[in-house]
C-alpha cells in the first residue's frame, strides 16, 4: 500500500470510473439543461429519484458482487406499498403496525429467496424470477380479495409521515434522500471497513474457495437476499406513505433501473468487483440522465434514445478506467 497521496492512485480506485461517468452527464446537462437543472429544485429532482432507486440498488449491487441477482425487488416495491396501504389504510390499523408488517414480509421473501438459492442450486435469476411472479400474484390476489380494488388509499399523519414519506428543506427533498445517505454510509462501513465486505467479494470471485476458506457463504447469501427484498419493501412502503396511495401494478422499472445503476457504478456483471461508492455514483448518474431530459429543449419523443446513449457512454468510460486500473503496475522506484 502506498502511504502517500497520489492522484493516480485515486483514479485507480473502483469508483473513479463511475465518478467520471457522473461528471460527464453532469456537464452534458449543465450545458443543455441550463441553470435550473443545477439549482436546488433541479438537484432535488434527481436526488429524489436517485434515493428511491439507490436504497434498492446497493443491496442488489452487493448481490451482484457476490455473484447473485435479485429481480424479485420489482414485485417487493408494490408488495411493501400495498401491505402498508391495506393494513393501515383499508383496515385503519396504526401506521407503525403496517410498516412492521410490510418489513416483515420483506424479510420473509428474502429468506425464501436465499434458502431456495442455496438449497436448490437453481440460478438466483430463475429463483427470483419465480418469486417475482409469485409475489405479484399474491399482491394482486390478496388486494382484490380484501379491498375489491387494485388501488388502495392511505392517509398518514404525524411522526410516521415525517420519518417515512414527507418533503424536507422547503418541501423539495424527499425524506428518502436522508435514508439513502444514511444507509449508504452504513453499507460503506460494513462492506469496506469490516470483514463482511471481504467475504462478499470473495464469494463473487470464487464461491467454493470462499467456503473452503471458512466464509459462511450460505448465511451471507441469505443475508444479502433479505437485505435486497426488505429494502425494496421499505421503498414501497415509503412511496405509499408519500403518495397517499398504493397501486398493485408498477415497480417493475426498479428491476432494470437498479441493475443499470449498479453496472454504471462499475460492478462487474460476473461478480467479484465493485464498490458501494461506485454504485452510489452510478445511481446518481442514472437519475440525472433520466430527469435531466426535462430541463433540456430536446423533443421529449427522443428521451429514451438520449437516455440509452448517455448510459452507454457512462459505462464505456467506466470500463476504460477499470481496465487502466487493473492493468496498472507501479513503476519500480530504485533497485534493491
Amino acid at each position, binding site marked *: 500500500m502506498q502511504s502517500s497521496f497520489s492522484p493516480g492512485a485515486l483514479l485507480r480506485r473502483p469508483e473513479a470510473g463511475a465518478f467520471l461517468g457522473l461528471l460527464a452527464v453532469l456537464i452534458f446537462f449543465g450545458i443543455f439543461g441550463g441553470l435550473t437543472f443545477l439549482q436546488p429544485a433541479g438537484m432535488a429532482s434527481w436526488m429524489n*429519484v436517485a434515493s428511491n432507486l439507490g436504497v434498492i440498488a446497493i443491496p442488489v449491487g452487493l448481490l451482484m458482487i457476490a455473484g447473485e441477482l435479485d429481480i424479485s425487488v420489482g414485485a417487493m416495491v408494490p408488495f411493501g406499498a400495498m401491505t402498508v396501504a391495506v393494513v393501515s389504510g383499508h383496515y385503519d390499523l396504526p401506521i407503525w403496525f403496517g410498516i412492521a408488517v410490510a418489513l416483515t414480509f420483506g424479510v420473509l421473501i428474502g429468506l425464501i429467496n436465499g434458502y431456495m438459492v442455496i438449497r436448490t442450486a437453481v440460478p438466483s435469476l430463475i429463483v427470483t424470477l419465480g418469486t417475482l411472479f409469485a409475489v405479484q400474484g399474491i399482491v394482486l390476489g390478496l388486494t*382484490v380479495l380484501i379491498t375489491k380494488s*387494485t388501488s388502495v388509499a392511505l392517509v398518514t399523519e404525524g411522526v410516521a409521515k415525517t420519518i417515512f414519506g414527507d418533503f424536507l428543506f422547503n418541501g423539495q427533498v424527499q425524506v428518502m434522500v436522508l435514508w439513502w445517505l444514511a444507509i449508504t454510509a452504513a453499507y460503506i462501513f460494513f462492506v469496506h471497513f469490516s470483514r463482511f465486505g471481504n467475504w462478499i467479494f470473495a464469494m463473487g470471485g470464487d464461491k467454493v474457495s470462499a467456503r473452503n476458506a471458512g466464509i459462511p457463504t450460505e448465511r451471507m447469501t441469505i443475508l444479502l437476499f433479505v437485505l435486497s427484498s426488505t429494502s425494496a419493501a421499505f421503498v414501497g412502503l415509503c412511496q405509499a406513505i408519500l403518495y397517499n396511495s398504493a397501486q*398493485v401494478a408498477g415497480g417493475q422499472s426498479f428491476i432494470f433501473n437498479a441493475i443499470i445503476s449498479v453496472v454504471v457504478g462499475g460492478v462487474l456483471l460476473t461478480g467479484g468487483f465493485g464498490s458501494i461508492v461506485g454504485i452510489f455514483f452510478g445511481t446518481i448518474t442514472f437519475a440525472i440522465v433520466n430527469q435531466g431530459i426535462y*430541463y433540456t429543449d430536446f423533443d421529449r419523443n427522443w428521451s429514451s434514445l438520449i437516455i440509452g446513449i448517455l448510459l452507454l457512454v457512462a459505462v464505456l468510460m467506466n470500463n476504460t478506467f477499470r481496465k487502466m486500473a487493473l492493468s496498472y503496475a507501479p513503476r519500480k522506484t530504485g533497485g534493491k
Partner: protein
Amino acid sequence: MRLIKNLMRAAAVVALMASAASPATAATIAVVGGSNDDAFWNLIKKGIDDATPAVVANGGSVNYLRLQNYDNFAPDVVQLIRTAISQKVDGLVIPNWVPEAEDPAIKDAIAAGIKVILMNAGGADKARELGAINYVGSDEYVAGQAGGAYFASHGKKHVLCVNTLPGANNTEARCKGVTDGMVAGGGAAEQLPLPTTSFGDPTAVAEAIKATLLKDTTIDGVITISAGDADAAATGIQQSGIATVSLGSFDMNAAGLARIKGGTQTFAIDQQPYLQSYLAVSLLAAAIDFGTSLPTYPVLTGPGIVDTVNIDATLAGVEKGAR
C-alpha cells in the same frame, strides 16, 4: 345420509328447471374481459353481475371469460372468442382491442349465428363494419375532448397531457382529444411523453412533471392518462410550488376522489365501466330473447366528469363497488 339425499333432490330439481327452461329462446351470453389485476375489469364484473339476474330470470345465463394476463394478448383474446363459439353461445360481448387479430374470429362468431356487441374498445364504425348489433363504451378521443373543454371553460390556457405510455393508441387518442378540446376553447395543450424507465415509479413521474412546470411557467393545467399517475402528478404540482395549476385525470381511484373532495384535484374523466357491461349484457339479452333493437348507435357510457359537484354521489357508488 339425509344431507346427501337432500342434495341429490335439490340437484334433480335444478336439472328439471334447467331442462324446462331450455326449449324457450334463452340467451346464453359470453362476455370477454381483461385480467384480474385490472381494477377496471372488476367494475365491469360488477355490471355483469348486476345484469345477470334479469338474464337468468328469462332462462338464460352469462359467462365472464377473463384473460389471465396481457402477456400473449392478441392470441389469448382470439382464443377466448373461439371458446365462446365452441360453447355455442347465443350472444357475445367482446372488446375489440386488436382488430387485426380479432376481426376474423368475430366474423366467424357472427357467421355462426352469434349476436355480437362490441364493448369498451372498437367503436361504432367497427361495429357496423363487422355486423355487430351495437357498440357500448366510451370514445377515448371524445373523452379527451371533454377534458380539454373542461379545462378551457374553467379559464385554463395551457395544458400538459402527461403520457406514461406514449405510442399506445388509446393514450395518444386521449391526449389528442385534450389538445383539440383546449384549442376549440381558445387555449393550447401539449403532450409530455415519458420514457419507459419511469413507468411505475411515482417519484420519476412526479419529478418529470415538476421539472416541466418549472421550465414552462405558462402551464396552468395538467392531465394524466391514468388515475395512478395522477397520484404522482399531485405531488409534482405541489412540489413545483405553482398553486394555479389544476389537475385532471383519465379514470379515477380512491386517492384521486379524496383529492377532488379535498380540492387538490379539479376533476376526473370516468368512462363508467359499470354501465358498459351492464348495458351491453342487458341489450344483448333483450335482443336475443325479445328481438329488441336500440336506435341509439353507438351507446356511449362516457365521458362522465367527476368534480366537486357530484363527488359525494360518486363516492357512494365507490362504496358499492360500481365506480
